[in-house]
């Protein structure tokens, strides 16, 4: 798992991940990239991350992937990421395509639901919590 201040250099990251696995004999490599869209007058999105729990979340996914003969990769931005740049990159390598296709969907969807990352719209230089697009994590409401 890789965290970066500001936008991701996705071409470099995807290229390096591919190079790192060149001789691993995986037959499928499925990258996914999240790009910041210009909408609702935002200049950028901004992200807070709680790394210790994100790392555990990622490590659990890696263990699940390995059980299926695959591996997962992930990179995410911290702080401001301007529109038309990228904040999130992930990928799956697997021996054959079917596992990679299934795993990339499960991995990205659970990332959206349970990775401890908080998103803010940036408008006129101010950060506004994207509450309406955020999802309570599994187990939310325990203390209510």
């Amino acid at each position, binding site marked *: 798992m890789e965290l970066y201040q500001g936008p991701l250099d996705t071409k470099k990251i995807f290229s390096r991940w591919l190079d790192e696995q060149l001789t691993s004999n995986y037959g499928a490599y499925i990258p996914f990239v*999240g790009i910041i869209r210009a909408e609702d007058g935002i200049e950028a999105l901004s*992200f*807070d*991350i*709680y790394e*210790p*729990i994100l790392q*555990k979340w990622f490590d659990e996914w890696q263990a699940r992937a390995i059980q299926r003969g695959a591996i997962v990769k992930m990179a*995410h931005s911290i702080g401001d990421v301007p529109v038309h740049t990228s*904040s*999130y990159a992930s990928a799956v390598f697997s021996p054959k395509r079917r596992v990679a296709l299934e795993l990339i969907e499960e991995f*990205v969807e659970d*990332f*959206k*639901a*349970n*990775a*401890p*990352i*908080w*998103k*803010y719209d940036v408008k006129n230089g101010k950060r506004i*919590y*994207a*509450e309406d*697009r*955020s*999802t*309570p*994590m*599994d*187990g*939310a*409401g*325990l*203390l*209510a």
Partner: protein
Amino acid sequence: MVIVEFLGPIGKAPIQIEANTLADVSAKLKEDAELTGWLEKCAVAINDSMVSDLSVSLKEGDRVSILPPVCGG
């Protein structure tokens, strides 16, 4: 004493409270008007492990994290 920290957009400094279980933490946090509306949406971790049981016992120095709704990507 245990430390309670509020992550992401909650925007509240960490506090120290006396608590033997998460139920004690819940009772204490409900007294705080700043947290009204947050608790029902927040998940909880103890020492960076997610938890789902109020009866979990706490020991001196444990760190309880309050995690509001997330949106990565």
